[in-house]
């Protein structure tokens, strides 16, 4: 059973009995998770006083801790339940700007130094073997971190996933976490795989964003030079030429081939967007990988969870998943 705790003035209050709707979500493009809940309001004298206020710490627990964050927004409307929106500590990285200059700093070291400046507790950061030489001016901290991971992905082909767990930030390789999501119809019944109870599957396939030819260029004293290119002739024959041009700094020329190859690998495919609704499992978060076998729309294999919205209402836990190809 999901339980929600409010912590303020060194007192922890279990506010679950007052909560109607509970909803938390994560998205692969965003650092940080969001939690929404509403609290019953009544002015009769038997009704408990609402302890929740902006800035309070909120913890969501089930078997383990699912979410820990700060109340950011409060919405009141007449005598309706009061709704609250909370974000985890990555909120501060999303809303703060900074100035950083890195000169051949290893990716994970660069990220660590940023996180230390903002007092974000670090769980673990996977080794990111790229040298970052870049000036970040007037940029959101989360965008700087994402840019570093993006540089790493282009050079090494490794994708990373960021998430907060127990109030600490983890940056890990995306492939490290394949989850098995299950649900129980009742507490005394053996668990079933959530993908056996799919509701409302939708699938969208498009070559809108496909790039099957990548050209890497550098510009030096107004002269533009093509450094390297990468092509997928099979895709070009079938779908036509879709070309991307990426300009890099002179100092990155040594990496040009890698960058071209990795961009081609990333963009040279049919893009898929799948959505399913399934019973809820707490371990499902954006960036993790789920195995799906769904015959009707034809989803088979491992899928990347791009976004997920968990809803608990009336004791029933459900989730909406967006699935992308890895």
């Amino acid at each position, binding site marked *: 059973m999901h339980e929600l705790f409010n912590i303020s003035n060194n*007192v922890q209050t279990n506010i679950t009995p007052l909560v109607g709707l509970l909803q938390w979500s994560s998205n692969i493009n965003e650092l940080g998770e969001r939690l929404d809940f509403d609290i019953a309001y009544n002015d*009769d004298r*038997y009704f408990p006083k609402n302890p929740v206020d902006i800035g309070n710490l909120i913890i969501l627990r089930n078997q383990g801790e699912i979410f820990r964050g700060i109340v950011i927004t409060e919405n009141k409307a007449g005598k309706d339940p009061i709704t609250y929106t909370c974000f985890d500590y990555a909120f501060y990285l999303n809303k703060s700007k900074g100035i950083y200059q890195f000169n051949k700093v290893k990716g994970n070291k660069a990220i660590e130094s940023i996180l230390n400046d903002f007092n974000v507790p670090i769980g673990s950061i996977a080794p990111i073997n790229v040298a970052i030489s870049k000036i970040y001016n007037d940029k959101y901290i989360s965008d700087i971190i994402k840019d570093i991971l993006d540089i790493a992905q282009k050079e090494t082909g490794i994708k990373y996933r960021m998430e907060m767990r127990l109030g600490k930030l983890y940056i890990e390789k995306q492939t490290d976490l394949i989850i098995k999501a299950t649900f129980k*119809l009742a507490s005394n019944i053996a668990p079933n795989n959530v993908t056996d109870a799919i509701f409302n599957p939708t699938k969208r396939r498009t070559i809108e964003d496909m790039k099957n030819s990548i050209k890497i260029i550098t510009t030096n004293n107004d002269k533009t030079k093509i450094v390297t290119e990468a092509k997928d002739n099979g895709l070009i024959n079938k779908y036509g030429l879709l070309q991307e041009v990426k300009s890099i700094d002179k100092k990155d020329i040594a990496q040009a081939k890698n960058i071209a190859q990795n961009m081609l690998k990333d963009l040279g495919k049919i893009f898929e967007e799948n959505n399913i609704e399934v019973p809820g499992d707490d371990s499902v978060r954006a960036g993790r990988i789920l195995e799906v076998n*769904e015959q009707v729309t034809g989803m088979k294999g491992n899928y990347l969870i791009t976004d997920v919205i968990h809803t608990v209402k009336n004791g029933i836990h459900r989730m909406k998943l967006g699935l992308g190809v890895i």
Partner: protein
Amino acid sequence: MDIFLSINNRQKIIKLPVLPKEFKVQSGMKNEAYDTISQGEIKLIGMPTLKAISLQSFFPMKDYPFLRDRTYTGWEYVEMIESWKERREPIRIIITDTPINMPCTIESFDYGLQDGSGDIYYTLSLSEFKFINLDQRSV
């Protein structure tokens, strides 16, 4: 068997002078059916709803030999229940010889005259009230 209604820890008590000829407690569940594409409908078990009970009887205007209580007459009962509504507090229903002992709210109270006897016929609908205690501890 007797039916007692009381407010604020037995500050005021009504013992029904005439018992209803029947009553039923409604006790439901909020379950949801869920349409999966591979197994059809499955049932997801939700949470219990609030219990409800409805009493239908009359408050006598004159003395009958079968009355179980003669503390108040007719409109006095009505006035009392009306004043309980105004207080916006939960009341308690106890039905002796049964396990029913439940804090309730008054959902509706319909009353009126019907056959020239002067007795006040009523339907009192009650719904369960749950006291909420928030668990607190220092951290």
